[in-house]
């Protein structure tokens, strides 16, 4: 029963501790919503989970095994949607998605093309199939970035402000895609300000894990 666990995670940025002693356990099919003020470390936590940022302390476990044993193998289970949409203005919508799905190859090779079409369909981008990236609005770009989730075989979705710039219809489609992914045993961790309607999702408030005010006494004796 694969689960994704964080134990006593701590992270610092530009020399300042952002959060400490952070734990969570995410069962298969689970969802975790990260809430917190700006700069409370939501994005940093997602980047630590994705493996982009090294935590200062603590461990991640996948399927009961520590991730550090084989970080590359674990990363195959990750699909990370960060702030950047990673869209090349010169390439068309289809070419952008085709490139990323070649870099993150879907499980089965056959039915590759209609998987791409299905991904575009999920986020209603079919009509924009051959439109170059530079002509996309920010909402459309976001939907193209999210469509990578559909083609990637990853079980864990790490979403950083996924709903930014999405209209209501697209928001519904995103929620539907998340529900479908969870139904298939996948997991979703999303940092978001706008309320996402995700059924029985766990909530994690970053403030709960703010670093303890450093004990002045500890500061003293270190000299």
């Amino acid at each position: 029963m694969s689960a994704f666990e964080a134990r006593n995670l701590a992270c610092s940025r530009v020399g300042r501790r952002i959060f400490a002693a952070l734990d969570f356990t995410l069962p298969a099919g689970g969802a975790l919503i990260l809430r917190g003020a700006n700069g409370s470390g939501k994005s940093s936590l997602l980047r630590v989970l994705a493996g982009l940022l090294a935590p200062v302390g603590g461990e991640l476990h996948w399927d009961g095994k520590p991730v550090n044993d084989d970080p590359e193998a674990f990363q195959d289970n990750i699909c990370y949607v960060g702030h950047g949409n990673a869209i090349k203005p010169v390439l068309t919508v289809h070419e952008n998605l085709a490139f990323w799905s070649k870099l993150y190859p879907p499980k089965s090779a056959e039915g590759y093309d209609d998987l791409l079409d299905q991904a575009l369909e999920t986020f209603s981008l079919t009509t924009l199939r051959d439109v170059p990236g530079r002509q996309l609005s920010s909402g459309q770009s976001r939907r193209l970035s999210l469509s990578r989730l559909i083609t990637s075989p990853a079980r864990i979705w790490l979403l950083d402000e996924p709903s930014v710039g999405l209209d209501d219809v697209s928001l519904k489609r995103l929620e539907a895609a998340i529900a479908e992914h969870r139904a298939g045993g996948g997991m979703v961790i999303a940092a978001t300000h706008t309320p996402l309607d995700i059924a029985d999702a766990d909530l994690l408030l970053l403030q709960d894990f703010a670093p303890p005010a450093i004990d002045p006494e500890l500061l003293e004796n270190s000299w």
Partner: protein
Amino acid sequence: MTGAGGIIARDLKLALRQRSDAVMIVLFFVLTAALFPFGVGPEANQLAAIAPGVIWVTALLAVLLSLERLFLADYEDGSLELMALSPVPLELTVLAKVFAHWLTTGLPLIAAAPLIAILFNMPVSALPILALAMLLGTPTLSLIGAIGAALTLGARRGGVLVPLLVLPLYIPTLIFGVSAVDAALLGFPVRPHLLLLAGILLISLVVSPLAGAAALRQANE
């Protein structure tokens, strides 16, 4: 391997669709070289003597000019993060991007070099050796340049910094590149120079992906 192939294919497609970049680099190469006669004087023998040196130095500067194209766009739009997380090892990604960069920069320079050789009244007999030496030297320039480009991602005015980091490391390639052509002109054996260039290329093929990937990981933090 398809992943890395995908990166090469994409970068080539990007370069083809933004052909102006590659054209600008070649124009810079030819134009800068063409400036020297105005500075040094049009006297044929003198130009022929400095021709190999001018060609190599201007080729070096042209490659330097094009290094920003390697990672900056991917860094800014978030592609670099996704490439780092992809199953394709980052070292291979660096190699793939450098190869694509070389195809769109190194090769055009090699194609344009004979034009400058003629402008400088360099004997045509040395052209094959010049092309061969540049074939061995320009990949090294892209490889070492990639390290400089990756290291300055996220730096304040990184572009200004790249020449200072990279030019000292270009010197061996410059020395043996020019000496190969000089040897050809003077009728000396050319093999040792080309072998040395090849040796430096092999070292760069190992060092550049390792250092480049380490630098990209730092940039993604």
